[in-house]
């Protein structure tokens, strides 16, 4: 497990990242608004760690992961990988950096080209980014198949001849082909059965140790993220509302949304009754039309007057613990504001 006490080196630095998708309407396709899928998020990812990114459907996790890899032209913000700014780099110039950053997708079925054999799929990035000979590529593909626990004799088979867990291994092998430093894993186990999920998670952990990989692990499965992540970021409606070391976040969540989210996870123990379960009312607002003030104010059990007016700043309230909530601002500030 990654040791947070030793001096951590920042591999990925994200500041003020925004990714808006324009909404067009009418016959002239006028720009009438934006889906604020990612709306001003900032965080670091340390070398060798797994940062978990959790939150409910549509909160912007995938968009955030894809934006960091510059699969989009971002709306605003800065992204540095290993000190190099890539936020404003044109796509043509990104090509040489692509090998260092890879992605593993949710749906192993849809993300693999059905017309290529396993060897073709895993070897594709090698063909594109290296000048390896055929024989060298084959050798590398076999090495990668060993690393992810796929039998080499399967290299001539097609994706549909594999189970979901095996297909996810193929996707992971491909992501590893160019010796990346950083991998965004977007719901890599969501499509897999419970008994297979553990196999894939253990594999990701082993590979991380072996190759010193850094992961952004996106998932809505809070218990799996607890298991795999060193630190966890919680998103709600386009914003990161809390970020903390795994242990602190799960044992003592600070943000009202994190509290509600964790208390909603049913525990597989019939003797455990959760006394203070928080049942949130209502639904998540649309990211095209977020509320004024704090994005969580329409559902927050701890809402105050100020929350409906001012967007709380995302700041470090305890060493290593970041929260965006007026409850954690200076108490006198709050009093003044609520009295106002």
């Amino acid at each position, binding site marked *: 497990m990654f040791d947070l006490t030793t001096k951590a080196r920042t591999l990925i630095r994200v500041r003020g990242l925004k990714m808006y998708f324009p909404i067009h309407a009418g016959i002239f396709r006028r720009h009438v608004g934006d889906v604020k899928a990612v709306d001003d998020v900032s965080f670091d990812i340390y070398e060798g760690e797994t940062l978990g990114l959790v939150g409910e459907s549509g909160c912007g996790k995938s968009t955030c992961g894809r934006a960091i890899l510059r699969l989009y032209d971002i709306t605003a913000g800065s992204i540095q990988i290993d000190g190099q700014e890539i936020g404003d780099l044109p796509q043509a110039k990104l090509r040489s950096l692509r090998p260092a950053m890879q992605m593993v997708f949710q749906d192993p079925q849809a993300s693999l080209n059905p017309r290529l054999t396993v060897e073709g799929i895993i070897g594709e990035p090698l063909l594109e980014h290296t000048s390896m000979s055929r024989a060298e590529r084959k050798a590398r593909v076999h090495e990668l198949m060993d690393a992810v626990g796929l039998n080499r004799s399967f290299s001539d088979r097609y994706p549909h001849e594999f189970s979901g867990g095996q297909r996810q291994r193929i996707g992971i092998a491909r992501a590893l082909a160019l010796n990346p430093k950083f991998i965004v894993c977007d719901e890599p186990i969501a499509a897999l059965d419970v008994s297979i999920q553990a196999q894939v998670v253990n594999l990701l952990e082993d590979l991380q140790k072996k190759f010193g990989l850094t992961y952004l692990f996106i998932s809505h499965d809070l218990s799996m993220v*607890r298991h795999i992540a060193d630190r966890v970021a919680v998103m709600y409606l386009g914003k990161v509302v809390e970020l903390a070391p795994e242990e602190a976040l*799960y044992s003592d969540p600070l943000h009202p949304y994190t509290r509600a989210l964790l208390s*909603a996870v049913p525990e597989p123990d019939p003797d*455990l009754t959760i006394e203070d379960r928080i*049942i949130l009312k209502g639904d998540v607002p649309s990211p095209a039309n977020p509320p004024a003030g704090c994005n969580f104010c329409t559902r927050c059990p701890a809402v105050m007057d100020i929350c409906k007016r001012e967007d709380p700043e995302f700041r470090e309230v305890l060493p290593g613990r970041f929260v965006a909530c007026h409850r954690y601002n200076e108490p006198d500030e709050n009093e003044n504001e609520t009295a106002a």
Partner: protein
Amino acid sequence: MPDGAPKVLDVRNLNTVFRTRTGEVHAVNRVSFDLEKGELLGVVGESGSGKSVTMMSLIRLIPSPPAEIRSGQVLFDGMDLLEVDDDTLRDIRGARIGFVFQDPMTSLNPVFTVGFQLREPLMRHMGMNRREADRRAAELLELVGIPDAARRLRDYPHQFSGGMRQRVMIAIALACDPEVLIADEPTTALDVTIQAQILELVRELRQKLGMAIIWITHDLGVIAGIADRVMVMYGGQVVEEAPVRALFKEPRHPYTRALLETIPHVRGKRAERLEVIEGQPPILGAAPTACPFRDRCAAAVEICGRENPALREVGARHRVACHLSDTGAGSGAAPEPEGAHV
């Protein structure tokens, strides 16, 4: 749970087979279970273990072909649902036995208002007129916690969020006061905070209405929170069945035990490494002649590959299908099948 309460549903030796171009799929093999009045039976198992096909078979909602119910009895109120004529069955379905399916968007009809879809069973099965049905429909929406219910009857499914659509589905399933509600992964597509709302609703409704519920899910956390009894399926068969506490505290089948070991938790101690069940689920090409779990079971012995174990009583309302359950090796005092999850 009331002990020895009357049975509302009694399923005996159900077998369902699919005929496909590439051969047969024996999806449901000699499945037997019952459901008592007012209880909630949780059904868990791996993807493809036959949970949905079992429930669709017992109310004959399974498309045939390709499916063929080869044998079995489904006793409901003195009738065998596999034998009754289509009219009788239609009266039972949707009125005395209600359903909720995984994806509310595909099971609600997008071209009709929610009000129409709620009134329809009320007018058809309960003989209500339009006015009465309208009033009852609004009551039902209110019951499942949809604000401004009377007005929302005029809305179409797409005008509701995922969680609300699932509430609407539940309202429709409850419309005629069913004795049995079958819910197939009703919260799987929902976010946890919305799932928590629905589970709370179900707890409330059970107290108010007292119907028996079959709840299919792959989430053991959900089961622990709402079930009275649990049935575990593997490879088209029931491998274990027990009261909820016994299942979590004294699981007897090697698969159930391994399953409980592989899941991470959000509370309590964090495991350094996840336990795994090696291998893949079985391919159900023929009627099983051996234990379906044998290839992945570390406790397997010679007989497991030769004979398919029958369900045996091992405790109060606790049944297990494992060859080791009668030699004592599968009993509570038995060695943990440790190798099963290395």
